[in-house]
C-alpha cells in the first residue's frame, strides 16, 4: 500500500483518536499537513471545509460507501494544482482520500472548453445573422417604400406622355412625336424596373401572398403568347407549345409572371427567325414546365449566377434590354410555390429553363 500512494498522488487521512486525524505515510510532498483536527486541514484546503459538512453526517451514518467532492484548484506552494476528495466508510472505518488530479481536471476542462467555445461561437454567429437579417429587412422596406414613391409620379409621366402621343392635347410635329416616344420608352422601362424591384423587395420581405387555385395552364400560356406575340413576330421568332393542356394548382397571376419572364427571355435571346418552345407535363408528384430557345445558351459555370439579382443578360452572350431582376424574381416565385428551377442545354442548342413544382398541395397550399 505504501508504494502505491505516491504513484496515485493520493493522501489517505484517517482518525487515530477521536478528533485527531493524520495522513498515512508516506505523506505526499504537496499535502503540507502533518495531522491534527480536520479544521486545521480545512485551513490548508478550503474546499474541505465545505465538503466535510457533508462528509461528517455521511460517516456518522456508518453505511459502507463513498462520498465524492467536486474538483477544485488551489495553490500548493508556488504552483496551482487540482484536487478531489472522497469520504469513505468501510469495515467500520472512516477515511478521507485527498487526491491530486491535475491531468484528469485538465482533460475535463478541455471537454467543457470545447462545448462552451462552440456555444459562444454559435451565439456570435446567431447575433451576426440576426443583424444581417435586420439590415436586409430594413433595406427591403426601404426599397419597397422608395419604389412605391417613385412609381406614383412615374405613372403620371407615362399617362400624360401617352395622352400626348395620342395627340389628345393637340397635334404634334414629327419631332415632338419622336421626343414623346422617347419619353414613353424610357419611362415604361423605368416603371418596369421599379415594379420588379418592388416585387423582389416584397418577396424578400416575406410579404408575398400566394392565392392558390386550379387553372388550365394552356390558358395561361395563351395569355403570355398574346402579350409577347408582337415582340416575337417583330424578330420572326416562332413560339410553339407542347403538352400545355394540363391543369395546375398554383397562384395563377404569379405563374403568368414566371412564364412571361421565361418566354420573354427566350424570345429576346433567340436569334432572328429563331424558335422558342414551351412544354409542360404533369406527373403524380410534380408539374414540370420547360421553356427552350435556340439562342446562344448559358455556359454551365454561369448558370447559378444568372439567378442573382442584377445578374444581367450579357451572361447569355447577347446584349439585350434587361434589368437583371427577372430571373431573380422568377426563381423566388418558383421557390414560393415550393418548386425548383434549373437550366439545361436545349436540344435546339440554346437555353432550357425547367421549372419543377410539387403538385401535392392542392388542399393545403
Amino acid at each position: 500500500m505504501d508504494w502505491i500512494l505516491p504513484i496515485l498522488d493520493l493522501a489517505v487521512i484517517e482518525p487515530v483518536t477521536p478528533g485527531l486525524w493524520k495522513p498515512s505515510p508516506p505523506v505526499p510532498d504537496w499535502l503540507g499537513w502533518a495531522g491534527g483536527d480536520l479544521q486545521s486541514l480545512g485551513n490548508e484546503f478550503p474546499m474541505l471545509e465545505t465538503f466535510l459538512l457533508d462528509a461528517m453526517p455521511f460517516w456518522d451514518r456508518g453505511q459502507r460507501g463513498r462520498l465524492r467532492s467536486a474538483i477544485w484548484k488551489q495553490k500548493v506552494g508556488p504552483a496551482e494544482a487540482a484536487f478531489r476528495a472522497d469520504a469513505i466508510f468501510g469495515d467500520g472505518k472512516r477515511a478521507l482520500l485527498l487526491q491530486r488530479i491535475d491531468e484528469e481536471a485538465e482533460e475535463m476542462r478541455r471537454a467543457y472548453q470545447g462545448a462552451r467555445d462552440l456555444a459562444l461561437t454559435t451565439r456570435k454567429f446567431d447575433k451576426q445573422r440576426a443583424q444581417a437579417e435586420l439590415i436586409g429587412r430594413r433595406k427591403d422596406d426601404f426599397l419597397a417604400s422608395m419604389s412605391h414613391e417613385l412609381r406614383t409620379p412615374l405613372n403620371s409621366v407615362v399617362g400624360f406622355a401617352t395622352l400626348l402621343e395620342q395627340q389628345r392635347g393637340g397635334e404634334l410635329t414629327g419631332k415632338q412625336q419622336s421626343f414623346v416616344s422617347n419619353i414613353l420608352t424610357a419611362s415604361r422601362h423605368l416603371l418596369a424596373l421599379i415594379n420588379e424591384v418592388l416585387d423582389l423587395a416584397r418577396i424578400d420581405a416575406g410579404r408575398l401572398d400566394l392565392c392558390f387555385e386550379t387553372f388550365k395552364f394552356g390558358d395561361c400560356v395563351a395569355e403570355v403568347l398574346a402579350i409577347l406575340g408582337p415582340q416575337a413576330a417583330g424578330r420572326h421568332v416562332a413560339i410553339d407549345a407542347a403538352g400545355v393542356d394540363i391543369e395546375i394548382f398554383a397562384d395563377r397571376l404569379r405563374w403568368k409572371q414566371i412564364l412571361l419572364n421565361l418566354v420573354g427571355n427566350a424570345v429576346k435571346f433567340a436569334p432572328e427567325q429563331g424558335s422558342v418552345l414551351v412544354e409542360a407535363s404533369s406527373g403524380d408528384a410534380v408539374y414540370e414546365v420547360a421553356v427552350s430557345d435556340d439562342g446562344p445558351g448559358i455556359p454551365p459555370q454561369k448558370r447559378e449566377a444568372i439567378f442573382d439579382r442584377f445578374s444581367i443578360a450579357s451572361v447569355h452572350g447577347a446584349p439585350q434590354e434587361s434589368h437583371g431582376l427577372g430571373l431573380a424574381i422568377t426563381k423566388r416565385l418558383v421557390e414560393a410555390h415550393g418548386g425548383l428551377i434549373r437550366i439545361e442545354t436545349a436540344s435546339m442548342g440554346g437555353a432550357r429553363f425547367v421549372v419543377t413544382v410539387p403538385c401535392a398541395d392542392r388542399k393545403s397550399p
Partner: protein
Amino acid sequence: MSETRPPLQKKICLAGAFGAGKTSLVRRFLQGVFDERYLTTVGVKIDKYSLLVDERQIDLVIWDLAGEDFLAPLQISYLRGASGYLLVADATRKETLETAESIVGRIAGTEGALPFVLALNKVDLAGECEVSREDLDRLETAGWRILRTSAKSGEGVTEAFEDLARRLL
C-alpha cells in the same frame, strides 16, 4: 496605545454565467494581468488574498465557481459558509444578466440574503453592449449594487472586490 484588531477571514464566491469573466476578474484583481484566451473553469478555483478595508485587514478566501450553463448548473452548496459573493454578468450578453438574477434567487432560497455586488463585466466592449440602462435601473431600484468592470482594462475591478469586502465588515 492603539488596539490591533485581528484580521477577518471571509469566504467570498464569484458566481455567474459561463464566459462572463469571473476568472479574469480574479486574475486581474490578484495579479493585475489579463489574458485574451478564454479558459473555462471546472469545479472551483480557490485563492487567498488580504486587503485593507477601512483600516481593517480582511483575509479573503476567494472561490471562483465554474460558470453556469446547459452543461452544469451552479452548485449553490459551494456558497455554504460564504460571507458574500461577487455576481458577474457579461455586458455583451444580456442572457447572462438573466442568469445572474436567477442565481440571486437560488442563493437567497438556500443561503439566505447574502451581501453581493454585481460586476457588469466587459464594459470595454462598449459597441457590443446588450445590457441596457433600463435593465440596470430596474435592478438598482431593487437594491442591487452594480459596478461596471473590465478585466481587460482593469476598470472597476478593485472597486468591485473592495465594495464587496466593505459590505462584509
